[in-house]
């Protein structure tokens, strides 16, 4: 199960980086979204996926899934959700103001 998850995370990273290197703004944003999904899956593999029962406080359970990675993922998902939505709005506004969504045209020069 961990192997499968790792491969999936790898595919997400590869596609994410590929999209990040594009010129169009929207593709770049999708790239960052895929990258953060890859990161979240990656955290999941760190805590061992399938080792026992849920981490619930009951007497007599000594084989349980590590709850910490899940807490980390939850926090991280919330943050990446917020940043991605901000980035989408920012990209739309930048497109409206600068009249382009091509990163090549968004370079700018020194003395402004």
């Amino acid at each position: 199960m961990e192997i499968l998850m790792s491969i999936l995370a790898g595919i997400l990273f590869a596609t994410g980086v590929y999209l990040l290197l594009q010129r169009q703004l929207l593709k770049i944003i999708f790239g960052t979204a895929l990258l953060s999904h890859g990161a979240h899956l990656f955290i999941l593999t760190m805590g061992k996926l399938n080792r026992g029962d849920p981490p619930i406080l009951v007497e007599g359970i000594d084989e349980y899934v590590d709850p910490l990675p899940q807490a980390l993922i939850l926090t991280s998902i919330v943050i990446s959700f917020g940043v991605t939505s901000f980035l989408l709005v920012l990209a739309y506004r930048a497109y409206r103001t600068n009249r382009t969504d091509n990163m090549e045209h968004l370079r700018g020069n020194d003395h402004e």
Partner: protein
Amino acid sequence: MSNLVILPILIPLLAGAMLVFWRKRLSVVRVITQLITMISLLVSSYIAYIIFQSGPIILETGGWMAPYGIILVGDGLSIALVLTTNIIAVAASFYAPGSLDKGREEHYFYTFFLILIAGVSGAFLTGDIFNLFVFFEVLLMASYGMIVLGGTKQQLRESIKYVLLNLFSSILFVITVSFLYSVTGTINMAQLSERVGQINQDGILTTIAIMFFVVFATKGALFPLYFWMPHAYIKPPAVISALFGALLTKVGVYSILRVFTLIFIGNIDYTHTLFIFLAGLTLIFGVLGALSTNNIKLIIAYNIIPAIGFMIMGIGVYTDLSIAGTVYYLVHDMIIKAALFLIVGAVAIVAGTSDLRKISGLIAHYPLLGWLFFIACITLAGIPPFSGFIGKLLLLKSAFATGHYVIAGIGLITSLLILISVIRIFVQGFWGERMTLPTGKPSITPLYIPISFLLFFSIVLGVGAEWFLPYVQQIGVDLMNPSGYVDAVLKE
């Protein structure tokens, strides 16, 4: 008693959230912000007093014992930086009303500002590496809000790059934390310090260490990862540039300092030699950038980079004295960078442009501004008796003492070049032919107060070095002996 350390985070955070409801009543919002920053400064001074009297304060949130729960740790280093942050916050809260336009102020500038302060203080105080990531995100979110505030063309253009780069390095941060968790099984910094010492897996731990370094170097604008910084920092108004220049990159440096004195000290030959090498390149390239431009804001923004180089050099040399020098330089640089950005912002307001070739003879119109800028310049370059000198002295002394002659030489030459790059603004912009001001003669009297306030601290830090040196040296000794931190947190 231990609940005290959460106050520097809680006060600005709650106040920032509260101010959302009064966005149209600017006069109320301004006064509340100024009051809150001053209260926060007083509270953190009190906490600093307690910490220097009786050792670190640990707060275990929710009553969970140290390795399990989320903890906040106020030790000497953290509280010194929190105190500096709050000094800058007070100055910024008094500078903002006089320099920002009404639209920006109404669109929640003060909320973003207070949340930024909360995030920065949180990053300094947290004792848990995942929470460091969370506080990084808190301060970055506030900075995203500030960098687009106003929504001009150039701001939007640069902020996209800024947000994308920071987002990418944050993702890398999460991945690195999970790597570290899989190897050590903990995210508590004190416990990490213990376990990393126990595990004999040099290869993987050095890899993780370098990944952390890449993440923090990106946020701290170190060579070769500084390319995004100068332009993104100068496009927003001066007060926002000052906050960014003074606080954001320094959080990256603080993280490097913390992580590489507490956790990854197993393979010093490799990692810390790399630091010295990169510090040299950072010094050279940063100062070359500052010399290459005629935009006064850009000159100051590029000057952030060699300062980071000096601090990383201190971490690389890795002795009691050099770490003390880094801490001293960090505090000095936060204050002086904020002051310089504020002064240059005032210059840009009165001259109507930030192109140095179009500014001349300002000292005839604004003598006080000119002399304040002159003091800031020589403080930055490290001329005695001002504060830049003491930090550099400690750093260079320790570099010479340990035989790092090349980096010390680069440091000396860079200091001279830094002086040239900023004194050029003074010579061309303030001396020379008296220019006619395009906008009449705007009054900038309210802007003098925060600038003088910051310079006052800078001068006290230099002239009164003897008062501060024992504390700074104590911080250096504490950082070189991580067992003290570990024992305080884990209570062994």
